[in-house]
């Protein structure tokens, strides 16, 4: 089965497209794809903003993102570019602080921001980055300043984390232990646990120490008052992701693990009624143009062996071995891609060839954008 082509230009040109989310396993090229899409959109007349999470340093510099200021800044593009591109690097702690400040009165906000637990929560809770990326998306969407928002997702353990993190945080803050800590008086629920409250408190005290337990209580009590606001926002963003103006682009490299993750993610999007635009298979190894496309691996290897046996033309035999290698890689990648596509009939695919070097300037992004637009 062969896949339909993902028509990136049609996606970017459609004014109804308001949000593009790039997701996938770690290291596959999400950030690169997001930036390339933003640039291409600008060059086709959109006013785009790209929220990136972890751009490689040189790529960030090429977009003028030397500082992490948590607000979009204009990417200098050549004169005559019909649209515009802004880019920002997410500062998760700052985003979190702002949400707290918005939802708590100043005194309580101060208590929360100064609590050691808040400091770990806002910098190292596995999921805060995802949560804050979505929060930022919600903010930018609401501001109405851009007609297209391209979101890069964090380098999570799992590509799904950014969908689940807000709920996980919510579940956790709604959890029994938090209730227990915020209302330490014996309550019915805890009798069910088969351990007396006294015992639990004493264990917590023993393991955590008294000071820690107090910090924790203070944090939970203060945070509880602002938490309703958090949950509501998370739900709003979640619904935004299901809206018709949103398009998910799942990025993978042609390797079994990354494609498995991509598959898993595409199924999940379907379950959650989130609109999939297509799959980007990045860093592929296409056959060369011209006569090379017709020379198979067996013939190339045989020819290389003949030259080596004759002891002549070492450059040509090396080129032939290289070619045989490329053909084998190409076939393996094609097999992996076909397997993924057949598990998701109807999915649209764009392939981006592996460049010999990293992508770290606008010119490189432009090249990626062009490859994306060429599609499969």
């Amino acid at each position, binding site marked *: 089965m062969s896949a339909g082509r993902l028509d990136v230009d049609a996606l970017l040109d459609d004014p109804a497209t308001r949000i593009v989310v790039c997701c996938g396993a770690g290291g596959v090229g999400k950030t690169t794809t997001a930036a390339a899409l933003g640039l291409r959109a600008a060059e086709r007349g959109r006013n785009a903003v790209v929220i990136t999470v972890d751009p490689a340093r040189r790529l960030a510099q090429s977009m003028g993102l030397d500082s992490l200021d948590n607000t979009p800044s204009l990417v200098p593009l050549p004169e005559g570019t019909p649209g515009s591109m802004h880019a920002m690097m997410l500062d998760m702690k700052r985003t979190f602080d702002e949400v707290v400040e918005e939802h708590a009165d100043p005194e309580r906000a101060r208590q929360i921001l100064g609590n050691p637990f808040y400091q770990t929560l806002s910098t190292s809770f596995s999921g805060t980055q995802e949560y804050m990326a979505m929060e930022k998306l919600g903010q930018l969407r609401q501001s109405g300043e851009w007609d297209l928002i391209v979101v890069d997702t964090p380098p999570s353990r799992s590509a799904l984390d950014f969908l689940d993190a807000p709920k996980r945080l919510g579940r956790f803050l709604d959890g029994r232990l938090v209730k227990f800590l915020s209302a330490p008086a014996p309550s019915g629920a805890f009798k069910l646990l088969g351990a007396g409250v006294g015992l639990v408190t004493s264990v917590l005290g023993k393991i955590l*120490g008294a000071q820690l337990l107090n910090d924790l209580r203070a944090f939970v009590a203060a945070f509880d008052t602002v938490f309703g606001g958090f949950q509501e926002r998370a739900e709003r963003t979640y619904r935004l992701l299901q809206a018709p103006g949103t398009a998910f682009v799942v990025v993978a490299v042609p390797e079994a693990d990354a494609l498995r993750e991509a598959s898993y993610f595409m199924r999940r999007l379907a379950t959650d009624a989130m609109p999939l635009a297509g799959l980007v298979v990045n860093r592929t190894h296409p056959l060369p143009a011209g006569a090379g496309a017709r020379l198979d691996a067996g013939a190339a290897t045989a020819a290389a062996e003949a030259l080596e046996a004759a002891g002549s033309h070492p450059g040509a035999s090396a080129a032939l071995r290289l070619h045989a290698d490329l053909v084998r890689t190409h076939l393996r990648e094609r097999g992996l891609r076909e397997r993924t596509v057949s598990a998701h009939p109807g999915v649209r695919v764009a392939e981006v060839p592996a460049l010999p070097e990293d992508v770290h300037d606008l010119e490189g992004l432009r090249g990626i954008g062009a490859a994306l637009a060429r599609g499969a």
Partner: protein
Amino acid sequence: MHIVTGKGGTGKTTVAAALARALAADGGRVLLVEVEGRQGIATLFGSPPLPYEEREIDAVPGGGRVFALAADAEAALMEYLELFYGMRRAGQALTRLGAVDFATTIAPGLRDVLLTGKATEAVRRREGGRRRPEGRFHYDAVVMDAPPTGRIGRFLNVNSEVAGLARVGPIRNHADRVMEVIRSDRTRVHFVSLLEEMPAQETRNGIAEVGALGLHVGMVVVNMARPPLLPGDALSDAAAGRADLGELAAGLKAAGLDDAGDLAESLAEEVGAHARRVLLERRVRAELAGTGAPLVELPLLEGGVDRAALEGLARRMAEQGVRR
């Protein structure tokens, strides 16, 4: 103790397992610990998920034995409570309350201290238990498949991570004991990198970070290296697009191929791209060497890594001087 980190996907689990085998090559007992709850070791060895239990997974020719453990914060907490406080029932109540989830969520430092605590306990463990402080060590080496470079500093610096939360008390004492092992000069932090810019950059940042924490950097494992297919001086010409098309066409013709002229043009492009990549890889390798850590190179294996392949990787490490 050997702590293996690197950018995600560079082959930490694979390298940690190969290292464990290499360290067991001259006999002895080696423990391989994973801490990320991914069952990466079981996947690699093609075995069912590992329980929270040290299990022999591999016997090495020459008499060495490799054991594996999937450390898990919750199980480590239960063990800790029982061991130090005799509080198994309380531990169970904590689990039902979601206390462990809580710890992992709000204060990852607590989770880290439980995980590193388990691994360092295995490092300190002696034959005959705590009553015989002069007994020989239970394991000759412990290899940890650690979190990626992005989190390694925080993970290993449990001491200061929990210090922000607990200045005194039992957690703090535990953290101090853990830190003593991690800081010890018999502990090394190894980095796995590819010959690509981002993993190499992360390796350099990681080395600086780990060094600044006063920990000892071990080797840099350059994983998935590909042999260059071109003779040395041809590389820079090819990279610059100055391949000798006439000579290439003559070679193809001599090999009996049709369309030698067109084919030469086609292949010259492939050769050019390959050459540019090889030059980039050289640059990256030189940058990695510039860190001062010894480089150990492992080849890219076609068809992925299984048990037999692991044996091959362990041998390559041993050949490059990796031993206990």
